[in-house]
């Protein structure tokens, strides 16, 4: 079965800083990886996903993530954050051929002005 770990519960940066949110997974086969964002009081919204091909994937609002099979990671990055990026970010994994989607515990990003 697949598992996903987000080691940082909270990350605080200043507006304009770069940020990396970490995600590590465990699964023995082909895997789908995604990132979602949750603003306070709302459901989750899709940011980006990876299954195969170029390990660096681009998402909405300047976010990108890089898949590393050797590190079992799919870290999310943004070069210059805005205050509106403050939210909780979730990493999700699903095994290929399966429908079960498992989420990490989330990382709360706070962007200070």
């Amino acid at each position, binding site marked *: 079965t697949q598992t996903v770990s*987000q080691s940082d519960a909270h990350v605080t940066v200043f507006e304009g800083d770069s940020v990396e949110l970490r995600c590590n997974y465990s699964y023995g086969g082909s895997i*789908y990886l*995604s990132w*979602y964002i949750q603003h306070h*009081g*709302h*459901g*989750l*919204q*899709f940011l980006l*996903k990876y*299954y195969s091909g170029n390990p660096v994937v681009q998402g909405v609002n300047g976010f990108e993530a890089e898949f590393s099979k050797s590190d079992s990671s799919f870290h999310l990055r943004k070069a210059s954050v805005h205050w509106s990026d403050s939210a909780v970010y*979730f990493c*999700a994994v*699903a095994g*290929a051929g399966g*429908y*079960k*989607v*498992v*989420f*990490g*515990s*989330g990382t709360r990003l706070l962007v200070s002005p």
Partner: protein
Amino acid sequence: GGIITQTPKFLIGQEGQKLTLKCQQNFNHDTMYWYRQDSGKGLRLIYYSITENDLQKGDLSEGYDASREKKSSFSLTVTSAQKNEMAVFLCASTDWGLGNTLYFGAGTRLSVL
């Protein structure tokens, strides 16, 4: 575009009560999910339904029942509400081709007195 509607938005119950949460989607998606989100924590998968008339248990299915009445709707029942329980229940749907995006509803917030 489509939308996922969860009803009710807020649900207050009594200890031991059976409570039902409803989810409707107009994306015409085959697969639907129920997740539980506790305050400050990640999402835990309760049930999912790959297609109409299918039910699959997630990691947190004990204490819950689910029903996929038709393609567009997926209900979740808390079989016996626990005193002081507070959580948000999130419904999602997707059209599984190759790791397609999950679309989420805004959630039902449960409080048990």
